[in-house]
């Protein structure tokens, strides 16, 4: 057990938060150009990137479900995610476990019956790890699914809560997580408050469970509001961009607004022309696209 003082007499935690504070969240939808939906989310020092593809034709015939869409989830850790550089195996039990949690959480929420015989692929990558893997995976998936325009009944938001020195605390970081203190991850539907995931690997006193679960619920709602604001802004921006064009179709504004000059600065005619017709279909796209900036980096 860590000798560190997890909760000092002033009621502050190792990272300076109070017991009921969540870590700072920042999130951004539509960060990848190739995926149908994507999102990048940071909760304190835990950072996650989610990509959603689909609903699309299943790659394997065995994955076809005749009455609903099949959801597949893949979770991976970047080698640089933890303080020690490490190569994570694809079949790591922990990763598979997280993937199955995410899948179970979203199966009842996504309206899968609207998409029979198709598949929804969710890929999650933890870029930096500082506790709360499952919660950040669920939150990132929610954002990416909404961004991909996949119908869901509600937002799913997840948050962890635990108990340190008999005080319920919210949103544990890695130091708090790796101490012996009990921890519960709760995922709820933000609007109806239905619980879709409740997971704990440690012993928790029955008497304090109520308080811990309640605290986690409050955390979920806070997270929901942050995600909702980001998604709303994004969708408004996209509609704005799309419609700005219709009004100024032929005008000089449009010509200026297009701002092609920067895009075509690196326009090299040679390789592009050759690729245009000779079968290498994506070369010219690869030159102009590439990933957009992630969350203010």
């Amino acid at each position: 057990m860590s000798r560190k003082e997890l909760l000092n007499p002033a009621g502050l935690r190792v990272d300076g938060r109070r017991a009921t504070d969540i870590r700072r969240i920042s999130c951004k939808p539509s960060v990848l150009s190739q995926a149908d939906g994507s999102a990048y989310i940071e909760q304190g020092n835990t950072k996650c990137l989610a990509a959603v593809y689909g609903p699309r034709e299943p790659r394997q015939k065995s994955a076809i479900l005749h009455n609903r869409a099949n959801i597949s989830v893949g979770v991976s850790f970047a080698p640089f995610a933890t303080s020690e550089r490490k190569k994570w195996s694809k079949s790591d039990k922990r990763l598979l476990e997280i993937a199955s949690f995410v899948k179970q959480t979203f199966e009842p929420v996504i309206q899968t019956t609207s998409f029979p015989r198709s598949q929804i692929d969710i890929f999650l990558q933890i870029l930096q790890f500082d506790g709360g893997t499952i919660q950040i995976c669920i939150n990132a998936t929610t954002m990416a699914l909404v961004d991909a325009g996949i119908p869901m009944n509600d937002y799913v938001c997840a948050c962890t809560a635990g108990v340190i020195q008999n005080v319920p605390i919210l949103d544990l970081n890695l130091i708090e997580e790796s101490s012996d203190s009990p921890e519960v991850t709760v995922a709820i539907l933000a609007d109806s408050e239905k619980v879709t995931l409740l997971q704990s690997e440690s012993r928790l006193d029955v008497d304090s469970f109520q308080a811990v679960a309640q605290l986690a619920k409050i955390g979920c709602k806070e997270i929901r509001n942050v995600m909702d604001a980001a998604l709303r802004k994004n969708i408004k921006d996209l509609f704005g961009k799309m419609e700005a064009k219709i009004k100024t179709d032929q005008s000089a504004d449009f010509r200026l607004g297009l701002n092609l000059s920067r895009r075509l600065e690196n326009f090299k005619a040679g390789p592009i022309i050759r690729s245009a017709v000779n079968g290498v279909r994506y070369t010219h796209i690869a030159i102009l696209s590439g990933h957009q900036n992630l969350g203010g980096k």
Partner: protein
Amino acid sequence: MNVEFLLPEARQNDDDVEMIDVSDKFVTPGETISVDAQYMRFGINDITISLCKDFKHYSLSRSHGTFSDEKDGIIKSSLAGRVEIVNKLISVRTVHSRYNAEIGDLIVGRITEVAQKRWKVDINSRQDAVLLLSSINLPGGVMRRKTEEDELQMRKFFSDGDILAAEVSGTFQDGAASIQTRSHKYGKLRNGSFVSVPPSLVQRCKTHFHVLSCGVDVVLGLNGYIWVCKHTPSLQDVDSETIYSHKNEPISDATRESIARVCNCITSLARKFKIINDSSITLAYEESFETQHID
């Protein structure tokens, strides 16, 4: 005998129920759009689905972005998007969802699989579309009947990876689209380059085959797949053997450059999330000459 007469009096005002204008509102999943019972929503299995065929200009996902709680009749959103109301019909429109095939749409697709009497075509939808052997024009006359021999040499018409223009002729019960190329306008595409953009950027219009002033043809598939190729005069009197040819014609360097430039312009427009049609491509194309050309 008593007769009672009623004098005309001002009608009682029943409009106390406040009418809230919900159209053009942005909603996110789980948000209540309306508690007003006057509105209808698109159902998946009920008869309203047939109505949606009449609203062709709405590219909506199959569930149209709304759902209703069990009995209280509250209409909630299942997508993040903008509320659109047509008469009493509520739907939510998003910008990032996949292509939803509707009858009559022109699409550009890529063959993914050759199966028994049919091809599977990737059309950027939730499932691959089906192109039946009977819904293509066989070489040797429009009226020619298909034979067993044709079934054996299907790869001669379309093989894996081929790109084609087609029209959506119907949908199957599971939502997969059935497409056809029974017109000289449709069929295999060659002499060009492929670009993919979000489907919501391509809007329905009178024609999706455009000849740009720079001598380049553009086929704007409603599914967001776009084909840019060398200009070919009307395909009407083309020799039936060349319809299914997979060999490119000789293309001049100038044309190649135009094709590449148009492709880059379309990609730039898509990155800026601008609607893509012939005029916006032409504008972007002209604008691209203002920028420095590095050789």
